[in-house]
Each structure stands twice: as C-alpha cells, then as structure tokens.
C-alpha cells in the first residue's frame, strides 16, 4: 500500500487548567490518543459533537498546537516537533479553512491583499505573477476579479466560504483541513458550496480533512470517517461501514439523532441518548461513553478503556461490546 499522506500516531493534546496564580488543578484532555491515516486524494471526515476535540485535533495537525505526545507524519516526514520557521514553511502544503472565513480575513485589508499575502510570505513571485495566480483562484471559486477590491464584510456567507477557499488554494497545498465548512449556511447555498469543494478537489488533486458535526454532509462528502467522543476516536471506517453498520453505541445514537427530512411515525425515532457529555476536565474512568451508554456495565466498562480494535477490514471500533452489538443497518 502506498505511504499515507498524513499519519497520526497516538496524538495527545492537553491544555493546562489554571486557577489563579501558578496552581494547576489538572489538565484538559482535549485530544487523548488519536491514531489514523489519511490517504492521498481522499476526503476524510472527522465528526463529533462540540467539545469532542475535533477542532483541536485539526489545529494540532496544522501545527498551531504542539502535540503533548504522539507523532504526526506528513508525506513520511515527522512534523509534530518542527522548529517554528520550518513549521511555517510546511503550511504551504497543509492549509486550514476556518469555520467563519469572513472573520479569518483582516477587516482592514481588501480581499485582494489578503489573497496575495500567502504568496508574498511563501513564494518569490513577482507582483504580476501573484496577481495572475490570485485571479485564477478567485475565478476557480466562482467569484470575479472585481471582488478583489472589496472588503470582507461586503460578502455574503456563501461568498465568504469561497474567499476562504481561494485564500488557501493560491498556495497549491496538498492537504486542506476544513473546520465546519458549512455551518451557518442555508441549505441551498450549502449545496453549491459542497459541489464547489468537490470540483476543486478533482481539479487541483487535493486531499481534504472535513471536520464537521453535520453527519449528512460528512456522509455525502467523505470516503472514510472517524467519529470522536471526548478526545478519542470511538469508531473509524469507510463511510458506508459507519453509516450502514455502525458498531459503537455512540455512533448509533448520533445517527439516530440526525433530523432527517422524512416524517417518521409517532415515537419511532430510534434510540436517543440521555444526558449530556461529561466535562473533558473530569472524565470518568474506563470507557468515556459509559455514563450515557445503553450497553454499559460495571465490568469491564467502568474498569477498562476499550482500545480501538478492527472488527472488520478497515472498520475500527472502541467498544467492549463491538462484537456483540447487533450490526443492524439503520
């Protein structure tokens, strides 16, 4: 098998909790031992609810956060402990699209100047060459050259997504990480934006990591999906495996909770999760999901944290009962 484009091995990112001066009552374990690989050319989905650590993980891959432990390799080269200058140079290859691309542009700069900036920083292109590249990209995302003279707040939500994409694509990266790329968009706009993402991926041979809480978008876009819960991956596999034969009780509950535009008979909503996730500052011992899990037992769930184990080729689940869970399709 070809070398994976991106490989994470047991990546952890803890944030110190501070209360007052110098006292450290503990750590916030935002990402707590995540391993997966992203193959060249695929769209890899990272899905979970707020606070599950998916955004922290994205920013750790990018190098904005330095992992507390673990290794990240990109094109076979370790990138988790690069000195700052090299880490910055690497951003030519790995780019990040923020949830609100409008806010990721300097409000005092014209859009054109913001689009030039990555090229100024990373290349020695002349002004004219840069302009040509910027115009190529602004057209590629479906905007016009005249838009370059405007300011970020003059654009609508959908246009801002396009701008955010144009800004990272001018560098011709190989990996693009999207953080909640469609949240806050109306569905009719979302549809066109997702279509654009797919077109650009084919045209520029990109690899995407899609971070989202929206399972229907993930299902539509991704080839493989990792489901995160409180800092760990609880289930990993092909989109078909995750959505058709989910094995982890959390994945199943998550799928049942998606509001679908289909009217179900009264009361037939499937299993709904009770309660809310515990704080990542005070995780329960054993399996993190056991407090909300319909299958949880005292032993082994409260005692052992289940490892991510392969239950079918390419389908990994972190549950003590992964084999006994009826793999009924949803």
């Amino acid at each position: 098998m070809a070398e994976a484009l991106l490989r994470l091995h047991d990546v952890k990112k803890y944030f110190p909790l501070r209360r007052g001066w110098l006292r450290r009552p503990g750590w916030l374990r935002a990402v707590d031992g995540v391993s997966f690989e992203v193959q060249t050319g695929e769209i890899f989905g990272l899905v979970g609810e707020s606070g599950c650590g998916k955004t922290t993980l994205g920013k750790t891959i990018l190098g904005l956060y330095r992992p507390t432990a673990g290794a990240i390799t990109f094109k076979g080269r370790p990138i988790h402990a690069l000195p700052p200058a090299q880490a910055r140079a690497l951003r030519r290859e790995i780019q990040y699209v923020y949830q609100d691309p409008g806010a990721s542009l300097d409000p005092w700069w014209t859009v054109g100047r913001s689009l030039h900036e990555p090229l100024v920083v990373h290349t020695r292109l002349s002004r004219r060459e840069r302009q040509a590249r910027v115009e190529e990209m602004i057209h590629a995302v479906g905007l016009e050259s005249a838009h370059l003279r405007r300011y970020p707040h003059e654009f609508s939500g959908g246009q801002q997504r396009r701008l955010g994409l144009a800004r990272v694509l001018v560098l011709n990266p190989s990996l693009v990480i999207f953080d909640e790329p469609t949240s806050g968009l109306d569905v009719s706009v979302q549809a066109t934006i997702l279509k654009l993402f797919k077109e650009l991926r084919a045209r520029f041979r990109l690899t995407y990591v899609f971070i989202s809480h929206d399972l229907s978008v993930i299902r539509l876009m991704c080839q493989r999906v990792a489901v995160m819960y409180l800092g760990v991956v609880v289930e990993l596999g092909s989109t078909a495996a995750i959505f058709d034969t989910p094995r982890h009780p959390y994945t199943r509950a998550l799928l049942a909770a998606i509001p679908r535009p289909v009217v179900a008979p009264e009361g037939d909503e499937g299993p709904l999760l009770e309660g809310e996730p515990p704080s990542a500052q005070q995780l329960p011992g054993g399996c993190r999901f056991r407090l909300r899990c319909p299958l949880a037992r005292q032993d082994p769930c409260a005692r052992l944290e289940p490892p991510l184990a392969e239950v079918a080729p390419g389908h990994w689940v972190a549950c003590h009962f992964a084999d006994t869970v009826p793999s009924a399709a949803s």
Partner: protein
Amino acid sequence: MSAFLKQLYADRLAFAGLLIVLALGLSALLAPALAPYPEDVYDIHPAQRLQPPSRQHPFGTNHMGADLLSRVLFGARITVVIATVAVGSALLVGVPIGLVAGFYPGWASELLMRLADVFLSLPQAVLAIAIAQTLGPSIPNVILALSITYWPWFARVVFAEVRSLKNEVFVEATQALGVSPWRTLLLHVLPNVATPIIVRSSIGMGYTILTAAMLGFLGLGAQPPTPEWGREIAEARQYLPEAWWYATFPGLAIFVTVMGFNLLGDGLRDVLDPRLRRGRP
C-alpha cells in the same frame, strides 16, 4: 479620507476641537509672522509695564513691558514642541512594549506590564515634578519627565487591544497560513490598534500640555525669559488682581488648547470606531 472629514464635521464639537488644534499648529508655525512684536520675547520695555489690553497690545503687557499677545503666540511654539516630542517618545516606547507584551505572553511581558502599572499607580503630576526636580529645570527635562510618565498609558492601551485581537480568528488565520509572527504583528495587529493609539495620542497631548504648564508654573520647566504659558501665569500671580489680563490670556490659551485636544480625541474615538466602520449593512 473625505468621508472621514465629513463624519468629523458632522460631530460639531470634534470639529471645533480640530479647528482649535489646527489654530494652535498655525500659531506655533507662524508665530514670528503673526506676533505684532516678535522681539518682545527677549526685549524689555520698562516704560510700558503692565498696560491693560489696548489697540497696540490686544492682550496687554507684562511686568517687563513685553507684548503679551506676542508672548502667548511664541508660547504656542514651546507648547507644541514639548507636547509633540513628549507624546511622540511616549508612543515610541509604549506602543512597541504594548504590542510585544500583548502578543507574546510570558514572564518578560508580565514584568514589563507590572512596571507600567507601577508608573500608572503614581500620580502623573507628582512623578513629573520629582523627575524635573531631580534633573534640574529645563525644557528638555520637562519633555523627559512627561514621556517617562506617559508611556505606560500607551503600553496599557495597546496591550489590552492586542490581547483581545489575538483571539480574533483572522490573527490566528495568518498563523495558519504560515505568516511570521513579526509580519502579523506589524501588518495585521498594529493597523487594528491604530484607532485607540490615535485617540489616546490626541487626549494625551492635552494632558501633556496641562502637566507641562503645571511644571512651568512651579518653576520646574522653562526659565525666564522663555514665554512658556505656565511660567507666565506663575509670574502674573504677584500682579493679581490688578493686572488681570496678565494671567488671563496665557491661562485661556492653556484652557482652549487642552479642550481642543480632548474634544478632538473624543470625536476621533467615535469616528474611527472600527465597530461602526466594520458594521455589516
């Protein structure tokens, strides 16, 4: 730019402030040409001492017989020089400290900001008096005293702004693009904190002029016969209340100038407020 002036014009008080500041600048620049008796800054005419305002001497004369209008106009020069140099150097020291301390949290930044807090906790006037007293009365020492007491204001304001800007997505996004921290600091952060700096500078000019006049009044600033406003008032004291004009006109000059800078500063705050500017339609 024209939109900016238009908005400033709409705010009548701010516009009045702007006019006052412009007038101050003009009188400082053109004092030799505007003053009816430019030589009176150094000459004495004992025969004409303490004359009330008249056609020849619109502001009257002082106890040396010098024309007060001329002296007030030349005083504007001194005031402008003191205030500009003092606020300018306070800017040069305070803004970089605030920028760096706000952008790079750590013990060094913490130390710098605590130092600024120490300066801020002392009453500015008392500190300036102490410094001027120690170094000896002269205009350069006044400027030094004023800049030493004023830089922490800039450092504080800029520090607070940079701290909150650091949480803005677009600042983090520059990091995500691989922009070097210095470039981010100079090209993204600094322009975004320009507004509070400008506003603070304008108000700071007023404060500085007031403190400078106070130092002059206490005899810690300019020495005779320099026509510094504060010193003029100090000298005029012994001739009150008979020679009311002697203290009144330098005093009015101080009052109007300080008010001008304050009005302008307040107006600029409203006009330059990025929240109003960035407001989505």
